[in-house]
């Protein structure tokens, strides 16, 4: 109750609303996201009352994914790398003049997914330790392998082109330092490449820059259909969550599980949830504007934050990159992250702030959707340069390196070629994210457990069986698969 008072009475609401708005803005801008907003805000909280510091930081962190989805859906430019899957069906819906409908499904899936993740976190408190320790190298490997095999599900049109995109992504993960010894490989003597190809410049390149140039080449507005977006459209999209409630719950659970596993990340949760929807939902038109293709990944994104708090609070080990910065902030404010926090009021403070931040950003997007959707009607000669500019600035803002801008340009050219030739950009991203996880955990499993480690552990074995089934399912004649009609 004390914390509720903090949220209600000034200046609590100021920090909560302010943090939410800042997080939303960071989310909507390509290249900026949770890491950057926390890194920017943390020094500002020095000297603040810890309660208000947490409200500001967690409020901002909770709002980022929803912001990223807005740009993914409206301009096919994910605001953060974990919003890539939202564009697969969200953008086609926008092109069909259903931007409000897509935003409604997205933002309220994200909000409810976040609440779901927070609820699961509270339920898991008595068993957090067992849950986190149940996952080890073989399970991480199998999850990543499952994600890679989902490429076949996410490939549109020619499945072989999707696989080629995937192999290109895997090849890119070789560049950088050997994850075992740390010795550079294929870095061509360039310092920038010593840590490998960074994800954010690639995403900015293959999405923001590619889309900006492609829009200019086409010369048309994003949506050829002129519509008036209303709150009714938003809630129409939100209602789809109720119609697909079981999918929502399953994908939220996927998000929570991925969040619990340290080092896997929101990008994987995004893809796995989308892939799961494609594999399990009947009569799907995924890639052509199927609202379930929006609900699935969006449910997982925010649910993941609740899961990521589990290892963070249980062992003091961050469940994601954002959690690492949050841990630092907690430490600076005199709190010791770890098991002690599980039994303190701080946990409830964090959870409540996450929940309210999710609701606030959903309301923000709902009531501003009419103006947000106007972007789709703007002439391309105005919107394309803005997207391009924001992409470049986002690439630079990542780490303040010119090289990130150059990388974004290069991958912009690659992305444009891929789009024109029908190669899947999302498969490239999936493989780039998962390739390193696969290599690292293959080595760790073989070094510490041997090959038997993959098959002696029940979770690992179960994931292996699922992976095999998913991989061979396209070859089974009795399983009818809908071919998607939109190149992602």
């Amino acid at each position, binding site marked *: 109750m004390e914390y509720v008072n903090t949220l209600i009475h000034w200046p609590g609401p100021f920090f909560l609303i302010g943090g939410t708005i800042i997080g939303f803005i960071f989310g909507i801008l390509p290249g900026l996201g949770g890491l950057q907003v926390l890194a920017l805000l943390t020094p500002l909280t020095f000297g603040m009352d810890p309660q208000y510091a947490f409200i500001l930081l967690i409020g901002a962190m909770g709002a980022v994914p929803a912001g990223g989805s807005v740009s993914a859906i409206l301009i096919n430019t994910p605001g953060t790398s974990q919003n890539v899957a939202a564009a697969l069906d969200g953008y086609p819906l926008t092109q069909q003049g259903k931007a409000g409908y897509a935003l409604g499904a997205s933002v309220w899936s994200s909000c409810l997914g976040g609440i779901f993740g927070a609820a699961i976190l509270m339920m898991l408190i008595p068993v957090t330790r067992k849950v986190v320790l149940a996952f080890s190298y073989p399970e991480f490997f199998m999850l990543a392998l499952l994600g890679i095999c989902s490429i076949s599900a996410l490939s549109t049109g020619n499945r072989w082109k999707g696989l080629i995109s995937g192999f290109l992504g895997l090849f890119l993960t070789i560049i950088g330092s050997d994850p075992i010894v*740390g010795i550079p490989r294929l870095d061509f003597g360039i310092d920038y490449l*010593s840590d490998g190809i960074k994800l954010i410049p690639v995403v900015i390149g293959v999405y923001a820059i590619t889309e900006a140039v492609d829009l200019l080449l086409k010369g048309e507005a994003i949506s050829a259909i002129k519509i008036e977006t209303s709150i009714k459209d938003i809630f129409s999209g939100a209602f789809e969550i109720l119609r697909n409630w079981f999918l929502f719950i399953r994908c939220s659970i996927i998000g929570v599980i991925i969040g619990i596993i340290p080092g896997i990340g929101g990008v994987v949760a995004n893809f796995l949830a989308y892939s799961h929807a494609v594999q399990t939902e009947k009569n799907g038109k995924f890639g052509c504007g199927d609202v379930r293709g929006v609900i699935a990944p969006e449910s997982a994104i925010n649910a993941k934050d609740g899961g990521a708090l589990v290892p963070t609070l249980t062992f003091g080990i961050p469940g994601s990159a954002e959690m690492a910065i949050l841990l630092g902030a907690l430490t600076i404010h005199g709190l010791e992250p770890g098991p002690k926090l599980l039994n303190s009021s701080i946990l409830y403070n964090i959870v409540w702030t996450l929940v309210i931040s999710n609701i606030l950003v959903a309301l923000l997007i709902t009531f501003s959707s009419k103006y947000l959707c106007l972007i789709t009607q703007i002439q391309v000669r105005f919107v394309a340069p803005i997207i*391009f500019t924001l992409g470049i600035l986002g690439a630079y803002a990542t780490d303040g390196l010119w090289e990130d801008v150059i990388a974004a340009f290069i991958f912009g050219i690659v992305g444009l070629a891929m789009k024109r030739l029908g190669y899947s950009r999302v498969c490239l991203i999936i493989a780039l994210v998962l390739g390193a996880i696969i290599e690292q955990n293959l080595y760790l499993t073989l070094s510490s457990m041997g090959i038997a480690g993959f098959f002696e552990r029940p979770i690992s074995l179960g994931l292996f069986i699922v992976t095999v089934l998913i991989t061979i399912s396209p070859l089974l004649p009795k399983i009818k698969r809908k071919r998607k009609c939109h190149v992602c």
Partner: protein
Amino acid sequence: MFKMNTGKYIFILMLIITLGFVAGCGANTKKAEKEKSLSGNIELFVGFPAGGSFDLLARLLTPYLQQNLPETNIIVKNIPGGDGVLGVNELYKAKPDGHSLALFSLPGNTLKQATGETTWDLRECTWIAQVVKTPYLGVVSGKSGINSFDDLKKLDRIRVGTIGINSTTGINSILVAEKTGLNFKLIAHQGGGDAMLACIRGDVDFIEYPYATCQQNIEQGNLKPIVIFSDKRMEELPNVPTIVECGYPDLANVGIIYAIGGTPGISKETADILSEAFQKSINNPEYIKKMKDVGMDVIYKDGEGMKEVIEQQLNDFKDAKTIIDKYSK
């Protein structure tokens, strides 16, 4: 190619404005300033991402540095990559005017030089001060049957969790293996948290980390400390023997050092000003307490002392490349 000329011109204009803006953001502002003695911006390069202990050390120190260098503006700049190498690269490219400093992580940075992965020489650095020296604590899983360093020695093969192999934790583990003759199998993880979780699970037998990193899990019984790599016992763990008591005095310095250095060639006058400011800041009781609260032990050493440390480490690591190859298989 473009259907509208207007679109083309706007596009080009936005591109020029963007590049100009980015160039302006990235410009070294101190180039526009006259070279005054320590006024204006001082950039402190941190070679790891924001939020970690490395970054935290720098940010906690900044307010005290500002007090002791009142005409300057201290800017902490994160340049992650290459396990701290990129931050040092940036320092060595800067002008030797005292306006660029870096936070070094040793022996990690020294090791990179010893294995030929860098173009710089740490002996040329203008060393300002050592800030932190933390001994490593050897821990095992709380559920393992290992209760002492002697118990560990009885294992035929010891799986040791590290962060990479060509790194601070990697080389420290190798040093322990070489001096004790124990059969270490190094298992490299991406981060300290991963390695610690692996130890808690029992997937690795032994890890070496600062006490602050392991403290919560030790208190919860998830991890068990069996040796401190120091010549004196810790106040917090009075029952944990030192490596010297275990019979290996050569390993009393296994740990991590955080130090401040400037670009090679800084004038003695400027270096003295910086050294004095850092000495006052680092020895500020308030700073020492804050660092203690976050689990880092402030142990000040001046620039001359740091030069000796570097020489010692480079000497210890002269065969590092060969040894690392041996443990990489």
